[in-house]
């Protein structure tokens, strides 16, 4: 997959940034404050691009409007993990979380790379981009402030191009909207009396 190296003047769907913070919690008590945050090496923007474009126009007053209903409060993103770390289940080891191992030489590994596993999205980058083959974990999505992400211009890596980003967006939406059905009990004869 070819990627786009030039950053547009706004945050776009499919943008990949490095070193993004996720605030776990903030506790304030009697003049003291405690902040816990997780630093993610790489994230990808999932918010729909039309929403990001409309927000940018209103936020920077490129269009005049009496209302600001197009403003968004935050941007949905998801982390990218090194696929080798995902195979070994150790990509969150430094957070004290052991993940399930995925055998890269068996069906589970093939399904992952073919994007047949609903939870994950696999991406390979061209040699011109210093990114290893990575996996997006849809279950670990989180939100970041729009202004915070916009200011991280120097941490912009690249952008997934159109069509590929729509594929990513569609798979993310499908994952979020999945329905877990309960297991059905086997019917017995007595239940029909």
């Amino acid at each position: 997959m070819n990627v786009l190296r030039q950053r547009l003047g706004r945050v776009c769907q499919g943008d990949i940034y490095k070193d993004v913070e996720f605030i776990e919690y903030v506790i304030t008590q009697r003049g003291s404050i405690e902040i816990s945050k997780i630093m993610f090496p790489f994230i990808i923007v999932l918010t729909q691009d039309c929403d990001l474009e409309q927000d940018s126009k209103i936020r920077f007053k490129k269009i005049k409007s009496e209302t600001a209903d197009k403003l968004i409060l935050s941007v949905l993103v998801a982390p990218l993990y090194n696929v080798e770390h995902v195979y070994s289940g150790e990509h969150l080891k430094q957070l004290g979380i052991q993940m399930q191992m995925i055998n890269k030489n068996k069906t589970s590994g093939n399904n992952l790379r073919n994007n047949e596993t609903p939870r994950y999205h696999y991406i390979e980058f061209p040699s011109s981009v210093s990114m290893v083959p990575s996996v997006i974990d849809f279950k670990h999505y989180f939100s970041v402030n729009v202004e915070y992400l916009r200011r991280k211009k120097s941490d912009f890596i690249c952008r997934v191009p159109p069509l590929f980003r729509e594929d990513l967006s569609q798979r993310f939406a499908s994952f979020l909207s999945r329905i877990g059905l309960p297991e059905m009990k086997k019917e017995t004869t007595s239940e029909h009396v």
Partner: protein
Amino acid sequence: MNNREVFTKEYSPESTTEAEDKKTELVIQEKTLLPNESGTRSVDISNAEKTQNQTGTGGISYYDKSKPYRIKIKAKEIKK
């Protein structure tokens, strides 16, 4: 008043309305990086960053920046 306004008012010296002698500042007491182990770890040194535990207990920790890691910051408001 929402939570964001309260945070700004209480912890931003520029926005305080108190008298000069009552101004407060935020002093970082502790900034820890996890995992917090002493000694070296078998990680790829090209991705690791050496850092010192700033709580004063000493020890050198290494962490792999190619994986997510957690930072905790504790700060206390003191009067100048």
